[in-house]
């Protein structure tokens, strides 16, 4: 744990220094830029609330990717599953009118069903025709993108608006806010704990992890690989779908064009940088969210375009992941040397 932590911190620092060099090259002052970035995401109660709110879709899609990658299936379909989940929640919110106590759980379940349906297609194609989910989920992402774009342009289009979007969902489906803090964080925490428990403490989670590490071992040990594959795909799809539902219910309360376009891919990055570790996903999700939430403030103060954060994120992923590998090699060498010395002594 400490080794992972150290390599993560070192990697982030190295990436931030690289980012600072890029800024210097462009003639910006990196210290004021980073200052603005983090004061707008972490400095004070309101920025903190925004950062936490924005971290929810990142963490949930990151969790989806982490669980999938660690269990074997290369589910890269989070962007599509998020969109379909968001669409399901939106449509539910438009046509159902119930008290909030029923409405919110119902919409969340709808979002999960939507996401699971979309990942279920990929799982089905894999089970029936052994088509690689790695490519099918990617293609389904593009299809979901166009499908939801169509849905908000024609059947669920808000007649009073000029760009493709749906009307607002029923007020009962809006997530309650406590001061500046949105209750989507609560739902995220509950889901995180549940997933962590399933993954780390239940037999099912153990089987998934074994399958991810060595599927032959798992099969010989009596795991039902095929059934587990489908379960993991459905679960991770549901997580991404839930992220989409929460985006709608916490934020604009409607489906806008380009909704959550980046969240899900960022989730995949978070899973990678966290090496599919669940707690790591949570921490990196918060960190990435603080970068994104501070981006606009940074642009406001220092004129560094907010798109810079996208560049910085991918640099962080590369540097941290590569750094982890290099650290492992260095650590191993040191250990061997130490052992050799002990033996000679």
């Amino acid at each position, binding site marked *: 744990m400490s080794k992972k932590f150290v390599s993560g911190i070192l990697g982030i620092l190295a990436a931030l220094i690289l980012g600072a060099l890029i800024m210097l090259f*462009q003639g910006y002052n990196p210290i004021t830029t980073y200052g603005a970035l983090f004061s707008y995401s972490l400095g004070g109660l309101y920025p903190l609330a925004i950062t936490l709110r924005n971290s929810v879709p990142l963490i949930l899609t990151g969790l989806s990717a982490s669980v999938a990658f660690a269990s074997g299936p*290369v589910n890269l379909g989070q962007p599509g599953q998020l969109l379909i989940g968001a669409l399901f929640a939106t449509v539910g919110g438009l046509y159902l009118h119930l008290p909030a106590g029923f409405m919110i759980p119902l919409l969340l379940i709808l979002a999960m069903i939507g996401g699971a349906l979309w990942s279920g297609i990929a799982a089905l*194609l894999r089970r029936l*025709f*052994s*088509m*690689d989910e790695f*490519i*099918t989920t*990617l*293609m*389904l*992402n*593009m*299809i979901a993108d*166009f*499908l939801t*774009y*169509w849905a908000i*342009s*024609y059947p669920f289009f808000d007649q009073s608006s000029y760009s493709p979007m749906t009307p607002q969902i029923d007020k009962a489906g809006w997530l309650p806010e406590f001061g500046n803090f949105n209750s989507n964080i609560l739902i995220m925490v509950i889901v995180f704990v549940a997933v962590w428990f399933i993954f780390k403490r239940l037999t099912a989670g153990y089987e998934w992890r074994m399958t991810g590490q060595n599927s032959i071992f798992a099969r010989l040990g009596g795991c039902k690989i095929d059934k587990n594959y489908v379960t993991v795909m459905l679960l991770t799809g549901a997580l991404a779908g839930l992220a989409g539902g929460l985006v709608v219910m916490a934020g604009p309360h409607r489906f806008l064009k380009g909704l959550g376009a980046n969240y899900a*891919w960022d989730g*995949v*990055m978070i899973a*990678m940088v966290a090496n599919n570790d669940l707690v790591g996903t949570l921490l990196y999700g918060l960190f990435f969210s603080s970068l994104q939430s501070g981006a606009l403030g940074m642009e406001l103060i220092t004129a560094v*375009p907010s*798109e*810079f*954060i*996208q*560049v910085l*994120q*991918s*640099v962080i*992923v*590369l540097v941290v*992941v*590569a750094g982890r*590998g*290099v650290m492992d*090699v260095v650590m191993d060498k040191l250990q061997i040397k130490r052992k050799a010395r002990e033996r000679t002594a």
Partner: protein
Amino acid sequence: MNIFIGLINGMISGATPILLAALGGAFTYYAGIFNIAMEGMMLEGAFFAVLGSYYLHSWPLGILCAVVGAMVMALIFILFTVYLKTDEFVTGIALNLFAVGSTTYMLRQIFKVKGAFSDPGIIPIPQIHIPLIEKIPVVGGILSGQNLIVYLTVIAIFVSMYVIFKTRFGLRLRAAGYNAPSLDSSGVKTATMRIWSLVICGVLCGFAGAFLSLGYVTLFSENMTAGRGWISLAAVILVNGNPGGIALISLVFGFTDGVGLFLQKYLPNQFTSMVPYLATLVSLYFYSIQKRKKLI
């Protein structure tokens, strides 16, 4: 007849970027690299093509810049996967996102626009009219008047076939993927072969990007590759890297692109835009059915 020629031409221009990127992917496929960074390389190429063409007022320099841009991506890939031994999959995903982020960032920094940049100052790659063939009815309209890159692509198919299957370099390249330890023990470094394959992939993706932003259309828009790199990856996997097969399958994808445009009269364009991706799924289906038959 005009519809027919239009459909064929649409197929060719739809197939060209996929085909070029997939040829690049074929080299890395044979060298044993799981290269999913074609999308990013192409996108970076498309951006630098517009940059070069606009500021240097010349399309050849635009292509050159595109190749350099894609090559930078290839070099980053080489640095991380070959030297630092980072996971190829992670590197590829991060590079693709880096390409989206960096081109969007530069679009704003350099051209001061969001979304898309088009300007009469961007000089497109010219179409080539072949004097005599042009006059032949029907065929003339297809063989002549294509974009320069289309002709280069045709040459690239045959050159790739020759290089991969008939030269010593190709043999070593395939050995790097087939059995790396024995290649190493024969005195040829696998790492060197992999680096070369990625460099070639960078060049080809650069051309693919240049075709997108200076041939197919004359502008750069955010994330304009729109999954073409992924489709080309699917093409490589479907035909196990064979350049001839790649040419065929790319034409099929290009054809669906054309069909999509044609269907716009009858369906909302969101559905017609789905067609290439659906076609990829369908072709994967046929591939897996065939593979299963072979196993039985």
